[in-house]
């Protein structure tokens, strides 16, 4: 079938999987995961077909796959929606399809498919383990299957639909639809174990925080429509429209229209990709199951924020002459660089294995945003793709570690041991080798281990662009952040895998099933190899062996291909030093640390994330609660509105009573009574006069009257 049809159909299988699972197969566990995995596989297949076809097109940036339909009539014109696969979305669909499929397969094992039902498991709480009796009569506690198994697959199916919709859209509207669907699924999945209050709160926090960004994004979209009467990318991002937008000025901050729109859209990304100051939701989002953290909060949803900025790059850089950053770009670059460093410092002091990775994600997203702010388009896309692969790998690896630890916890029965705390682990490389090696590959990729890992190539390109364009402050910040990245990653690996087990549970950990380790292996292949498609041509020794396909392919998305900077030794040297140095220092410091007390870097400020949660609670959450509870509810609603209505009711009642008492009873009744009474009285007074009972009296009276009448009659007749 034609490529456009395939593109239209890409989001469909996960959506169908969602509906089928929810409506029909909720009770059947294997049927549900089969439907979900098959749906992901179908979308993966479609994406691969599209990608391969895209590779075969010459000058793909000019000849894109596109199809749109008229959707909303707006007066004489139509609002069109449709699909678009240009180089940027082709590469995005590639990594999205792979990561989604790997995570779907991983989830089967993560939720303990095949294990017995738990002893006390309830829907809404994580599974606690089931007691089985083996052939010797010994009872063991083993991990139990997740009670809400099918629901999970339905939700991640819906999520996959949202992500695919976002990536294949050719207009801001359907992109925003996909964006919001993912926001919803993020809420549903963070709060998957809704029995835990921490999970519920984290879900609400995530939703609220990203909502703040989404409001501004919607304003940006509205502004776009207002300025250009269209929402599709081809209409907005062509040269003519961009020059118009960049020359109209707005009264806000002296920005041009293009600058203001891109700033508003960027605020959406701040929320979605957890940049400072809206970063607070991502660490708490680790309450969700690990596949959720991997997919949503590492590979796809947070990447969607960066994808939006990349997509809107022509708008953001309208007015960029290649040297002097526009105001918006400066803001973007500042926030990105700041976040990168900020999050990296916090990650150093975290003990939970997933929290470290969460802050790491924030930091790496900061790298990408900073790159975009500087105008390093291709570097940002490169890092986006490689980060998706190795971060997903790292999260899935951490899930595998946690699973192993939980097995150990159930085996020993010591439930005070937190299976996610790194200081309870240690020596796991012997117990869980596949997990160890894949995690190591991912960690090295994250740190930027030279040559062999994809992360090195992408991070190095960002640093090179920063240095080459003269943004030395950003360069320095990112370099320090890279050093810290390597440091805390090695810390994590050392504490978790190296050394000796620190608790009994760690001693009894064992490797996880193939459904969990296979995705790890596949992803590590990408984490190693993907970098080699983007080796700069001028790189010493290695440059030129493989063409810099990535730069050509992705750079074709833009109207003018981005220039290739001349090679400079400084950034290369810096990245080598920070990467290797950070790894060494990390291993050296932590190789003998036995417990958290010995960790010298547990600064309170860092551990408590610079108290940002507390600050926000004081500044925003508590006033909001006060506003809702006291002002809106107690004051406005109960006192004023209800009081008003009750007052009206009371007034109506007193009017009624008053009416009754002062008008109805005396006047109306009185009148009636008066008539009756007076008639009676008149009758009583007249009766003795008229009704004597004597017939002669009656006869005299009547005869007198008769005579009078006759006389009068004859009188008047004459």
């Amino acid at each position: 079938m034609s490529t456009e049809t395939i593109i239209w159909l890409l989001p469909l299988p996960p959506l169908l999987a969602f509906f089928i699972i929810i409506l029909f197969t909720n009770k059947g566990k294997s049927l549900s995961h089969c439907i979900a995995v098959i749906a992901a596989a179908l979308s993966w297949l479609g994406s691969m077909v599209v990608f391969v076809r895209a590779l075969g097109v010459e000058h793909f940036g000019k000849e894109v796959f596109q199809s749109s339909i008229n959707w909303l009539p707006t007066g004489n014109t139509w609002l069109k929606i449709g699909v678009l696969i240009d180089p940027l979305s082709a590469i995005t669909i590639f990594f999205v399809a792979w990561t989604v499929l790997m995570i779907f397969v991983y989830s089967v094992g993560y939720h303990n498919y095949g294990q017995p039902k738990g002893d006390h498991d309830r829907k809404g709480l994580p599974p606690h383990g089931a007691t089985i009796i083996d052939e010797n009569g010994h009872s063991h506690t083993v991990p139990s299957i997740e009670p809400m198994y099918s629901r999970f697959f339905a939700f991640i199916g819906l999520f996959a639909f949202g992500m695919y919709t976002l990536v294949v859209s050719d207009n801001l509207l359907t992109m925003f639809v996909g964006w919001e669907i993912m926001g919803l699924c993020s809420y549903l999945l963070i709060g998957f174990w809704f029995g835990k209050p921490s999970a519920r709160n984290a879900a609400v926090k995530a939703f609220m925080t990203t909502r703040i960004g989404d409001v501004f994004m919607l304003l940006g979209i509205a502004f776009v429509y207002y300025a250009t009467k269209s929402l599709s990318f081809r209409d907005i991002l062509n040269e003519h429209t961009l020059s118009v937008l960049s020359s109209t000025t707005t009264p806000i901050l002296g920005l041009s229209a293009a600058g203001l729109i891109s700033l508003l859209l960027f605020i959406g990304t701040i929320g979605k990709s957890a940049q400072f100051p809206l970063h607070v939701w991502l660490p708490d989002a680790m309450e969700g199951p690990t596949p959720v953290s991997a997919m949503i909060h590492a590979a796809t949803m947070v990447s969607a924020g960066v994808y939006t900025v990349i997509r809107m790059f022509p708008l953001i850089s309208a007015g960029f002459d290649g040297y002097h950053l526009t105001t918006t770009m400066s803001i973007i670059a500042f926030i990105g660089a700041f976040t990168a460093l900020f999050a990296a410092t916090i990650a150093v002091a975290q003990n939970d294995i997933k929290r470290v990775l969460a802050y790491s994600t924030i930091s790496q997203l900061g790298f990408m945003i900073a790159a975009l702010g500087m105008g390093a388009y291709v570097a940002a896309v490169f890092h986006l793709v490689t980060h998706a692969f190795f971060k997903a790998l790292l999260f899935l690896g951490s899930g595998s570690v946690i699973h192993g630890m939980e097995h150990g916890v159930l085996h020993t029965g010591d439930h005070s041991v937190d299976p996610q705390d790194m200081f309870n682990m240690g020596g796991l490389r012997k117990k869980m080798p596949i997990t160890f090696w894949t995690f190591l590959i991912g960690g090295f990729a994250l740190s930027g281990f030279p040559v062999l890992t994809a992360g090195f190539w992408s991070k190095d390109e960002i640093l090179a662009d920063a240095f080459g364009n003269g943004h030395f402050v950003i360069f320095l910040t990112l370099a320090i952040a890279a050093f810290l990245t390597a440091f805390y990653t090695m810390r994590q690996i050392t504490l978790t895998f190296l050394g000796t087990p620190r608790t009994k549970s760690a001693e009894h950990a064992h490797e996880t099933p193939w459904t969990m380790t296979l995705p790890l292996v596949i992803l590590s292949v990408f984490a190693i190899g993907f970098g080699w498609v983007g080796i700069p041509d001028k790189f010493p020794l290695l440059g030129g062996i493989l063409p810099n396909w990535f730069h050509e392919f992705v750079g074709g998305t833009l109207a003018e291909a981005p220039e290739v900077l001349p090679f400079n030794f400084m950034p290369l040297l810096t990245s080598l030093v920070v990467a290797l140095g950070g790894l060494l220092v990390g291993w050296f410091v932590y190789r003998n640390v036995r417990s958290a007390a010995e960790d010298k870097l547990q600064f309170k400020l860092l551990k408590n994330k610079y108290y940002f949660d507390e600050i926000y609670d004081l500044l925003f959450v508590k006033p909001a609660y006060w506003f809702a509870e006291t002002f809106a509810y107690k004051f406005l609603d109960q006192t004023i509105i209800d009081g008003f209505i009750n007052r009206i009711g009371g007034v109506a009642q007193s009017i009624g009573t008053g009416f009754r008492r002062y008008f109805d009873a005396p006047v109306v009744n009185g009148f009636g009574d008066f008539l009756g009474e007076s008639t009676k009285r008149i009758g009583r007074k007249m009766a003795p006069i008229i009704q004597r009972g004597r017939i002669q009296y009656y006869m005299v009276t009547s005869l007198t009257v008769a005579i009078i009448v006759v006389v009068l009659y004859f009188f008047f007749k004459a």
Partner: protein
Amino acid sequence: MSIPLSWYLILSAALFSIGLFGVLARKNAVAILLGIELMLNAVNINLVSFWRYGNIASISGQVFAIIVFAVAAAEVAVGLALIISVYRRRTTVIANDLDLLKW
């Protein structure tokens, strides 16, 4: 023959008025009934004179007078019976004392 009708009519009018006076002015109930008899007789005279001085062939004047006789008789009988009954109860036949039918 030679007596004008007017003489009869004046006579009956006079008799009627006298009877009326008796009805209105006498105390005793029986005396009231006597007055009524006079009035009825006046009526009869009227009827017969009109028969005689009007259409002799149509005997209805006399028939009417006979009916009046019968009615007068009946009325006297019942009236006196009533008076006797009342007298038994109240030992009075003075009309003015019989005034129970008032408010």
